[in-house]
């Protein structure tokens, strides 16, 4: 039997905290004794562009990249970006998405329109869609940047890592003065998923 590997695609827009999301989760998986690889791209790709970060953990990981149609989870911080990377989803995979819309430059300039049927198109492909309004909740918390940790809290409901691992990883990856806020955000996110 093939050893179980968990594949997670996280996507959004440059500046949304996609990379920090997978940094924290990678650390959680490592502290659980698993092999971990995560992959992303910096530089030009980050200037407000589309961002994808890929995380894999299991007994032994070779490729740092996830193959299309094999992601167990797609965590989308923005609607359009979620649809853009939906082809990574496996048949039984789950989609967690923030219904936030951020218009890309061709839409801002009026050259193209932001598609109005994104949810329908995602739902046409999978029944396992969980909408998490993390950005809205983050604003209510008074810190838009907590969106990623709220999403992490939501995703944690589907993973089998103990809370202490998340707490530790959040402490190691986030500046001390924002730790309490982010732990609160994590717990808030966790409550959003009713299984």
């Amino acid at each position: 039997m093939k050893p179980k590997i968990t594949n997670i695609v996280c996507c959004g827009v440059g500046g949304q905290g996609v990379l920090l999301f997978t940094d924290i989760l990678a650390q959680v998986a490592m502290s659980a004794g698993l092999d971990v690889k995560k992959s992303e791209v910096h530089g030009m790709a980050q200037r407000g562009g589309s961002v994808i970060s890929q995380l894999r953990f299991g007994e032994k990981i070779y490729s740092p990249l996830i193959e299309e149609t094999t992601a167990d989870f797609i965590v989308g911080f923005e609607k359009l970006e979620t649809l853009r990377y939906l082809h990574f989803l496996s048949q039984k995979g789950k989609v967690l998405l923030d219904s936030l819309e951020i218009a890309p430059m061709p839409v801002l300039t009026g050259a193209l329109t932001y598609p109005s049927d994104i949810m329908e198109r995602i739902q046409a492909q999978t029944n396992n869609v969980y909408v998490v309004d993390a950005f809205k909740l983050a604003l209510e918390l008074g810190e838009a940047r907590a969106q990623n940790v709220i999403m992490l809290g939501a995703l944690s409901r589907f993973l089998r890592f103990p809370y202490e691992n998340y707490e530790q990883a959040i402490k190691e990856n986030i500046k001390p003065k924002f730790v309490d806020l982010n732990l609160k955000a994590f717990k808030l996110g966790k409550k959003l998923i009713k299984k």
Partner: protein
Amino acid sequence: MENTNRSLFSGDEAIARGAWEAGCKVASAYPGTPSTQILENLVNYEGVYCEWSTNEKVALEVALGAALAGVRSICTMKHVGLNVAADPLFSSAYIGVRGGLVIVTADDPGLHSSQNEQDNRYYGMAAKLPVLTPADSQEAKDFTKLGFELSEKYDVPVILRITTRIAHSKTIVELGERIEVEDKGYTKDITKANLLPQFARGRHVLLEQRMKQLEEYANTTPVNKIIEGKKNFGVIADGVAYEYAREIFPKASFLKLGMVWPFAKDLVRKFAQGKKHLYVIEEVDPFLETLIKSLGIKVTGKDKLPLVEELNLRIVRNALTEKPTTFSTAADLPPRPPALCPGCPHAGLFYLLQKKDVIITGDIGCYTLGSYPPHNAIDTCVCMGGSITLAHGIEKAFKMFKPETAGNPDDKSKKPKRVVSIIGDSTFFHMGMPGLVNAVYNKGNQITIIVDNRTTGMTGHQDHPGTGKTLMGEQTKMLKTEDVAKACGVDKVYMLDPYKIKENRALFRQILSESGPAVIVSKQACALLVPRKAVKKVNVEKCIGCKVCLSLGCPAMSFQNEKSHINPAFCVGCGMCAELCAKQAIE
């Protein structure tokens, strides 16, 4: 299960750690994605002098100097940086080292943040230097340390070739302690370090001998390893391509090459023996494949695998197996290209330039994003410093047009135009200065705009000679781009604030009407480094929906219900839109 001696490191972080553990004491680099984070991390360790050099040639010479003074040194750069450093690279092979010297080249298959996909394994072959190609962060650290050892043992600099997927992927690394290497000290030896032809001849002979010895090493080193699997099916791979191959073909026999040059001929021959099917899986060019075929061995490689883009699991699977992965993508979605940030000072400049009938040669930096709509402002992007020099060549060609064709009003391609070059502050120090001197010396007429945003922007805000701070965090002399431009011989040097679009409009008109050469220093700090000001808001009563403000290309602005709209979450309050609005509708 937690083990405190393990850490999740990117390849860049792992190389920094490896250099530190190896007792490296001098490190030099010019920032370039995906290599930048190596020195950004290494500077945080004790006992290593680190510097941002002005360009890669300078950086390599600094590291070579340190190696000749007997300390272990490292020099890091992106792949195209090695082109800049190629001159000292080839000579360093002749000279060799005293302290070990590792040269890191970070290639970018897939062009995530580069202008080409060149395969720098060839530099090892061309310059006669050993090339190590790690496949993950652990190997990136281990091979860095091995590089120092080989460098000293064989008296030759060692190239460590990584790719974006190694540099920016995080994998688990076992941490070690720093070893203290004794300083070898400096000894004058002109037959070694002085490449006058009479000495260089002898050095070349020695270099060829070293390469022979290194080839023997390549055949026996544990970094070139055979992993036994199916007897008749073999795969040869290096770098991250090995990881994809191993996952797709878990039962195959593997020859994993960690040292690709000198080429381990005997080992490859031994591995290929009796293999009915032999694949070579490598990214970009058929470097290994050509070498394997030169031994008369039949192998499947680039006849099935692509020569372009980076590999991944699907590409390898679909090229080489009977069970392709198929899927459809949502191809009709609006793209999300990278854009100038809200408040980016470059936007104010491009707003004015996009309206001018001039040729604009661009350079390497954030301002290259002015090539995209709505600005469409940049004609060319070639290499570091290429803006000023290309502009000069275009101008000189225009002068050679025959007057009768130049005057033909129907043929726009033969109508000479004013040429404007755009270059960033860091890029100007890197390679812009010789081009500017050349333009002055050779009676150029161009207008050079130095977009001085007080940092190296695109790579994530590194210091440079114009910032007054070193990589070690020390204060230093601040070179002003305007002073350097004057020192290059430019008499007409203008200063402007790109946020003041109205003032600049008149200034541009004036400068374009004069003859050159002229330099405009457009000085305003990168918007990401400046505290946000009060957010601007559109007064919908006053807004007439003329869309003038939208042509700034600001990501905070959009058009909603026939009026301009400012997203308060993105706006940094730079005020450029308000300056442009004829109806004072932005407050």
